[in-house]
C-alpha cells in the first residue's frame, strides 16, 4: 500500500484520461522520471513543467497496437498525450501505449487480473480517488454507469451492502513534534491518565489536587499533601479541597494501587471511600472512583483471584514458579529454592531461574487482555513465535500432563470455557461490567492510618516491565529522563 501510494503520488496528475482535445491543460507534465521516484515526497510542491510537445512517444517496450476492427479504436489522453487504443484496453495498457510505464506487482499481461496490490494506482479525471490501472478499462469518458439506476449491482448493494465503515475506533494522528527518541508514546497507563487529566484541565478547567511526593506536572494542579493524613483531613471536612470535591459536577478520584502495598491500606481506602461518599463521587449515573493499577495484567490477575495466600510466602518457598513475573523482588527468594521461569523477554528473572520455559510474547499469540478499566480485548498473532516458545496455556497444560494432574482443557476454547467459570467478565470482549454491589459490604475495621508519606510508585515510567526494559528506545528515553 505504502509503495503504491508513494508511486501514485510521484506520478500525480500524470495519467489523465481526458475527454477531448485539451492540449492546453496546464497540468500537463511528463511522466515522472526515476530520480523523482526515488524522492517522491515533494511531488505536490514541484514546479509545473512547461508545456511540452505532443508528438507521440515511444510505447513501453516498443509495444505495437493491433486494431482487429478499426471502428473499435478510441482516443484517450495520457498526461495530455492523445493515444489511440482498441476498446477493452485497460488504463495500464493505454498508458503503456502512451509510453508511460506503470509500476505493478500483481499484474502480468498473461495472468488474470487481480488488482489487489495497489501499486499501479493512477489518477483518472473525474474519478474521486486513484484507481488500479490494471483493472480499470480505459474509456474516453469518465467511468459513469449508463444503466440509469436500473442496475442489479446497485440494487444488491442497497439491499445487502454495508455503507458504513467498520472502523469504529478513534483514529489517532500524531503531529511531527520533537518527541525525543519515541516514535509512539509508550503504552503506560500513567502516561494516558496524565494526558487525560491534562485535557480535562485545559478543556474543562478541571481542578486537580494530588497527594504524594511533589511532582512537576504539565497542567495546573494543587499539591495537597504527602501522606494519608491529608486524606483523613479531606474526609473529615477539615481541608479546603473537601469543598472543591463536593462542588464538582463530575468528581473523579484516582487511587494509585501502591496504597495496597501498605500495612494501613484498609484505613487509607476507607478514608478514600469517605471522601467519595461525601463528595457524591459514586452515583447511579456517574462512578468517579478509580483504582489505577501499577502492573500490566494486574486487573485480570485480580479478577482470576490470583492473590497471595499468605504473607511472606516467597521468603519461605522451596519451589517458585514465575509465570511471566518479571517484577518480583528476587532477593526475597531463598537461595536454595528451585525456580521455574515462564515468560518471553528474558528479563532479570531468567538469571535466577533453574529452568526457563520460553513463552510466546503478546504479539505472537491469541489472547485476551483486560485493561485497568476492566474492559477486555482480544488479540491475534501478528508475528510467528520465535524459537521453541509456546503459548502460555499450552506450557501449563503440558506440565499438568507430565505431573499427572491433567488439566481438563486442551484447546483455546476449553481455556475460555474455564475462564467463564472463574471470571465470566473476562470473556465478555470489549465490554465493561459495572459493579452493582456497594463497597459498603466490606467488613468494618478499627485500623488507623500510618502517617508515613506515600512513596513514588513508578520511579522510571519509561521502563516499567520486561518489555520496556528490553527496549533500546526506552533505554534512550530513560537516559534523557535521568539527565533532567
Amino acid at each position, binding site marked *: 500500500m505504502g509503495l503504491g501510494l508513494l508511486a501514485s503520488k510521484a506520478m500525480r496528475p500524470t495519467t489523465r484520461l481526458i475527454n477531448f482535445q485539451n492540449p492546453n491543460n496546464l497540468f500537463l507534465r511528463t511522466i515522472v522520471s526515476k530520480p523523482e521516484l526515488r524522492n517522491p515526497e515533494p511531488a505536490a510542491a514541484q514546479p509545473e513543467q512547461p508545456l511540452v510537445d505532443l508528438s507521440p512517444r515511444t510505447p513501453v517496450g516498443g509495444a505495437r497496437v493491433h486494431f482487429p476492427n478499426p471502428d473499435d479504436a478510441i482516443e484517450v489522453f495520457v498526461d495530455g498525450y492523445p493515444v489511440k487504443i482498441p476498446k477493452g484496453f485497460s488504463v495500464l495498457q493505454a498508458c503503456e501505449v502512451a509510453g508511460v510505464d506503470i509500476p505493478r506487482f500483481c499484474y502480468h499481461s498473461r495472468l488474470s487480473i487481480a488488482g489487489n496490490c495497489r501499486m499501479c494506482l493512477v489518477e483518472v479525471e473525474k474519478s474521486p480517488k486513484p484507481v488500479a490501472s490494471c483493472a480499470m478499462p480505459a474509456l474516453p469518458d469518465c467511468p459513469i454507469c449508463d444503466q440509469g439506476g436500473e442496475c442489479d449491482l446497485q440494487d444488491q448493494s442497497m439491499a445487502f451492502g454495508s455503507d458504513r465503515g467498520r472502523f469504529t475506533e478513534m483514529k489517532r494522528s500524531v503531529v511531527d513534534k520533537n518527541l525525543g527518541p519515541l516514535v509512539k508514546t509508550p503504552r503506560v497507563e500513567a502516561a494516558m491518565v496524565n494526558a487525560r487529566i491534562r485535557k480535562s484541565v485545559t478543556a474543562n478547567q478541571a481542578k486537580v489536587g494530588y497527594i504524594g511526593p511533589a511532582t512537576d506536572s504539565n497542567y495546573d494542579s494543587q499539591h495537597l499533601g504527602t501522606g494519608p493524613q491529608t486524606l483523613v483531613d479531606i474526609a473529615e471536612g477539615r481541608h479546603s479541597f473537601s469543598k472543591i470535591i463536593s462542588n464538582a459536577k463530575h468528581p473523579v478520584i484516582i487511587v494509585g494501587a501502591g496504597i495496597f502495598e501498605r500495612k494501613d491500606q484498609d484505613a487509607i481506602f476507607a478514608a478514600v471511600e469517605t471522601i467519595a461518599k461525601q463528595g457524591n463521587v459514586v452515583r447511579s449515573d456517574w462512578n468517579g472512583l478509580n483504582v489505577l493499577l501499577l502492573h500490566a495484567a494486574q486487573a485480570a490477575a485480580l479478577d482470576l483471584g490470583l492473590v497471595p495466600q499468605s504473607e511472606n510466602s516467597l521468603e519461605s518457598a522451596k519451589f517458585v514458579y514465575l509465570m511471566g513475573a518479571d517484577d518480583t523482588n528476587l532477593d526475597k527468594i531463598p537461595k536454595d529454592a528451585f525456580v521455574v521461569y515462564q515468560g518471553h523477554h528474558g528479563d532479570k528473572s531468567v538469571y535466577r531461574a533453574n529452568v526457563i520455559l520460553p513463552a510466546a510474547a503478546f504479539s505472537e499469540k491469541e489472547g485476551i487482555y483486560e485493561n485497568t478499566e476492566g474492559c477486555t480485548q482480544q488479540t491475534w498473532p501478528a508475528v510467528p513465535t520465535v524459537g521453541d516458545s509456546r503459548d502460555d496455556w499450552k506450557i501449563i497444560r503440558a506440565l499438568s500432563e507430565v505431573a499427572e494432574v491433567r488439566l481438563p482443557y486442551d484447546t483455546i476454547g476449553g481455556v475460555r470455557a474455564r475462564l467463564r467459570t472463574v471470571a465470566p467478565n473476562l470473556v465478555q470482549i470489549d465490554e465493561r461490567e459495572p459493579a452493582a*454491589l456497594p463497597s459498603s459490604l466490606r467488613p468494618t475495621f478499627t*485500623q488507623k492510618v500510618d502517617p508515613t508519606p506515600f512513596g513514588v510508585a513508578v520511579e522510571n515510567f519509561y521502563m516499567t516491565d520486561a518489555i520496556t526494559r528490553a527496549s533500546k528506545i526506552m533505554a534512550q528515553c530513560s537516559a534523557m529522563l535521568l539527565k533532567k
Partner: protein
Amino acid sequence: MYAFPVRLPLDTSGWKAMAWRGNLSKNIKELRFLLCQSSPASASARAFVEKNYKELKTLNPKLPILIRECSGVEPQLWARYDLGVEKGIKLEGMTEPQISKVLEDMVKAGEAFKA
C-alpha cells in the same frame, strides 16, 4: 469488585447456630459467586451476597471470596478445595436459605477433599 483482606478480631457472636460459617477457610481455598448485576435469575444470589458477605468475610478474613458480576451470567457458587478440586452449583431458582444450605454442604464436602 475486589475483596480486600482485612485483619480483625473475629466476631464470634453467631457461632453457635452457624458454626460452619467460621470454618470456611479451613476446608475451602476460594469461594466464587458468579452473578448478573440485574437479572431476576440472579436476584436471590445477589441478596445472599449483600446480606452475608460481610459476616463471611469477617469470620474468614484470609479466605478469598470472589464476587464476579457479569451481565447475563447464570448465578453460580463455586468452591475450590485443596489441589485445585472444584465444586460448582447453579443457584438459579433457589431461595436465600437454600443458597446458605448449598454453601454449608460445600464446606462439609471440603472435609473429604482435605489432603
